[in-house]
């Protein structure tokens, strides 16, 4: 029994059981559902820690069964436990547990409490199953169930029209990406014969580059771009903020959106076959990073800013994979999970305390909410990349990879780091510093209850310390442990100096714009800002709306061709027959003379026809 408990798929089994329990006995359990879910995620975290130590000691553990077989088409699904999946398992279950404890406090007075927790647990089960998946099949199945959970959780408050629309847009955008991934997956299985990650790399290397494999790789990237909201799929993430804050923290910051990057890391051998594919990924990643960093500056709501910041960081990770250094991307993925979840929780606390997240009506919350502001400060500085916090080390890895790849991308990512530092520090200053006079509800703000602040503090510690294992002080222990790709040229001072300067400039700019030069330059940048807004968000949004209405008009066209053309074509002979029958009826005139004449004419006709016999 024990070995069964410690099976790589058991971290997925516990939340699944919790989800089922909550779903079936939801009515009776009421508040206790929170504890069941949290307990389940605690169990899965404990098991994943054990598995982490086991893989460190014994190395890779793998097993699979034949899921579907027909003729020469065979698909297997099973589990793969290597350092990469073990560590990501630990990170995700830890963050998941903290957020579920946090959610107990913030969702306490919501009538649909049980539905929230059963869907959340189902999501955790899907995420952990995805991480432990040995091949693209189980990965894809968990991937789509996560899509469903995100759909249900974004639309949790379904009475709100905005939430319903956001969920609808999110599901369809990711669904489009998923179908590209499905096609790519099938192309791989038809040419390489297998979908298992380990076998994938050997077979891909053996087969060599081909148009078929490059097309499959691009489709896989499209799938990842759908889920990780890369350009042009990035339109659904900012709207996804309609969901409850714990959902945004867990799904739309730490785990689900990161799954896309994890997919790219797993299928890196196939992507790396064709350099053009990598360059596409790098280009899309960097473009998303820069664009969304600029957009983050413009947004006036805390969660929207954090959403754009997540887009930007994901863009950087994707770009890093484009620079063929998946290790650094994964390291940034881990640290980002910690400090982004922390920032979202902080935003949740602010929202919980004073009911609004509009930056204009906030300020001076530092004093009444000491703990939250402290943790939020650590988080935003980590995001900004201030050494020795975790953000600095992981971002420095990406910048090193960019430096090695091409100076243009290095410059773009430096600009992104500068912008990141700028908006994250400004965010902190606008909420917690400055005079408290501006908004009435800022006065009534009080610190949130214990159950919400403790997870916040633990994440604060993690955000600060998580970078150390990957830093030179511990000899890049994390990268070597993951073992995907060795760290770039550590000693290049240009990279180190560049990231330090970018971070310093960003912080200084934020301090100045929040302090003495408050209103300066707002008007001039407003025009550029509006153009950026239009290009960055309105354009893709309207493109999506155009695509949707295009589908609808095609639908109307199909329906009316059905009704008029096809139906008409079949009904036409019927109508013609009715007319002919009505006309033909007249020959039954009722006059005997007509009948006799007709008979006589018939006889004559027969005779005439018969004569040439």
């Amino acid at each position: 029994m024990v070995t069964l408990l410690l099976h790589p798929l058991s971290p997925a089994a516990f939340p699944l059981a919790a989800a089922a329990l909550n779903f079936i006995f939801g009515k009776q359990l009421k508040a206790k559902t929170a504890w069941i879910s949290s307990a389940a995620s605690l169990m899965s975290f404990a098991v994943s820690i054990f598995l982490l130590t086991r893989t460190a000691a014994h190395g890779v553990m793998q097993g699979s069964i034949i899921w579907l077989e027909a003729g020469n088409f065979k698909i297997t699904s099973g589990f793969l436990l290597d350092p990469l999946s073990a560590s990501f398992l630990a990170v995700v279950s830890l963050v998941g547990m903290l957020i579920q404890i946090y959610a107990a406090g913030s969702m306490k007075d919501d009538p649909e409490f049980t539905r929230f927790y059963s869907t959340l647990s189902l999501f955790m089960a899907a995420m952990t199953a995805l991480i432990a998946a040995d091949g693209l099949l189980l990965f894809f199945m968990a991937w789509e169930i996560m899509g469903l959970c995100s759909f249900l959780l974004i639309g949790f408050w379904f009475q709100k029209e905005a939430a319903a629309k956001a969920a609808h847009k999110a599901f369809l955008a990711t669904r489009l990406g998923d179908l590209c991934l499905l096609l790519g997956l099938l192309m791989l299985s038809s040419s390489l014969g297998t979908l298992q990650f380990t076998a994938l790399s050997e077979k891909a290397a053996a087969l060599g580059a081909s148009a078929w494999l490059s097309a499959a790789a691009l489709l896989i990237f499209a799938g990842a771009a759908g889920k990780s909201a890369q350009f042009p799929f990035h339109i659904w993430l900012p709207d996804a903020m309609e969901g409850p804050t714990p959902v945004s923290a867990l799904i739309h910051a730490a785990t689900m959106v990161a799954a896309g990057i994890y997919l790219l890391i797993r299928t890196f051998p196939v992507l790396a076959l064709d350099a053009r594919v990598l360059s596409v990924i790098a280009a899309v990643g960097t473009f998303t990073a820069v664009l969304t960093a600029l957009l983050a500056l413009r947004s006036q709501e805390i969660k929207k800013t954090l959403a754009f910041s997540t887009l930007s960081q994901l863009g950087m990770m994707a770009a890093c994979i484009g620079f063929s250094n998946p290790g650094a991307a994964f390291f940034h993925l881990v640290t980002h999970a910690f400090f982004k979840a922390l920032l979202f929780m902080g935003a949740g606390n602010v929202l919980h305390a004073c009911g609004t997240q509009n930056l204009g009506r906030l300020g001076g919350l530092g004093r009444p909410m000491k703990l939250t502001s402290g943790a939020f400060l650590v988080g935003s500085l980590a995001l900004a990349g201030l050494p020795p916090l975790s953000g600095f080390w992981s971002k420095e890895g990406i910048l090193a990879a960019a430096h090695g790849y091409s100076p243009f991308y290095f410059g773009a990512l430096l600009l992104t780091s500068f912008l990141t530092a700028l908006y994250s520090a400004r965010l902190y200053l606008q909420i917690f510093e400055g005079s408290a006079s501006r908004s009435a509800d800022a006065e009534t703000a009080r610190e949130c209850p214990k159950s919400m602040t403790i997870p916040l503090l633990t994440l604060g510690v993690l955000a600060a310390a998580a970078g150390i294992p990957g830093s030179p002080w511990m000899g890049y222990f994390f990268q070597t442990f993951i073992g995907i790709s060795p760290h770039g040229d550590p000693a290049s001072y240009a990279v180190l100096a560049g990231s330090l300067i970018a971070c310093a400039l960003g912080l200084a700019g934020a301090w100045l714009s929040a302090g003495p030069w408050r209103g300066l330059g707002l008007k001039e940048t407003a025009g550029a800002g509006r153009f950026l807004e239009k290009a960055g968000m309105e354009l893709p949004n309207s493109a999506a709306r155009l695509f949707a209405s295009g589908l609808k008009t095609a639908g109307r066209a199909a329906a009316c061709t059905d009704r008029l053309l096809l139906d008409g074509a079949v009904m036409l002979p019927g109508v013609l027959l009715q007319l002919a029958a009505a006309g033909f009826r007249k020959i039954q005139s009722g006059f005997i003379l007509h009948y006799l004449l007709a008979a006589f004419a018939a006889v004559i006709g027969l005779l005439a026809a018969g004569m040439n016999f």
Partner: protein
Amino acid sequence: MSTLQSLAHFKTEIILLIGAFITLFSDSPKGSRFLAGTAALLTLTLAGVAAFTEASQQSLQLFGGFFTLDGATRFFRFGMILAAAASVLLGMTRGAIALSFFAESTALMLFLTFGLIVLCASGHFLTLLLAVEMVSLLSYLMTGFSPQNTRAREAALKYLLLGSFCSAFMLYGISLLFGLTGSLDFDSVRAAVQDGGQRTAAAASLLFILTGAGFKLSLFPFHFWAPDVYEAAPSPVAAYLTVAPKAAACAILIRLFSEVFPSMQTFGAEVLQTLCILTLLAASLLALAQTRVRRLIAYSSMAQAGYLLMGLSLFSREGLQAAFFYLAAYGAANLGVFAALTALSQRGTQDHLEDLTGAAWRNPFAAGCLTVFLLSLAGLPPLAGFLGKFWIFAAALKEGEVFLVVTAALTSMIGIFYYFKILRTLYFSDPLIALCAAPTPLPLRILLILLASAVTAAGLFPSWLLRAAESALR
């Protein structure tokens, strides 16, 4: 064979004649149908038994060649008797026929049966002519005889005029043939025509004779009498007239082309097939626009005559066998339709479709039987009509008559439409005014059960009917 010996084989016909006279004089003053009805049924059963037990299988030339008793005659004779029995049984139900006229009409029907049997068995053009005249006169009489029904008299007059017109042509054809060959006996005429001396004249005479058969089968140019007669005549008479005369006409056609004009079969096939296609198309179009039930049934039986003709005109063994099978299925189904309509009808023979709305919920049994008969006529499995139609199509395809088959398929598609127009009114809406569910009288209930089970049995286990059709060809 000399007349005395042949009388021994003439038992069924003699019983029929005697029975007819007895029913004629058994018109009971009290006005009950029982006496006349039982007399007729008794005669028919006796005649049926005699026909069935008439042992000899080989074909005989009775009365010096005037009456050929072969497989076909036996098949038709038994068929006629069954049809007559069904019509008499139908006549015995209240409201089917005016009481005062019941005894006479049943007697006339027996005479008509006798005439038809002689017609089927004629081996000599004189017997053919006499039988045709007898049958025609009797049918005009029976259509128009019912006392205060003016529409019936008008229909009978039309029937008379058109009928005598066509049989005049037939007479002319036969006299032309006599002029050519100097004799009226089938065998000698065949010998004369065989040597192909005056082919065109023989062809002309054949055409004239065909008009007579065409009139009896209500083929397209000669069908004008059918809707008026079948609508105006009382139900049993109309039922009998749609089945028996058509069967006799088929018998005559087969006999003419197998015994008298075998050499001109290709010419005959061409003529008959054009007539068949014209009849099918005309009947379907006319039925499509029809809302009066009886006239709809008239056109449907015209279309069925077209399918029968399609089978006959192939002149192949499968074709004839399929035609016989189809004739039996059609006969039972058409008699059934008239019986069911009498059970369901509101305004006697003048029913519009609207009068039948929701009839199924008033009288489920009769409506169920009507559905079975209509589906068999439409040619839907698992009923006899389907097997008959399938077999005719298959035989035609075997002979390579693809165009004929395609038109027949097209007209059966249209057929679905008008048969289902009736089904739709029966089932799809509830009865308009809350009519009392009139229970079907006992004789009618028995008749319906017999006919419905005959049609379904022939559809599911057709081997017995196939063997009968096989014997008809010997």
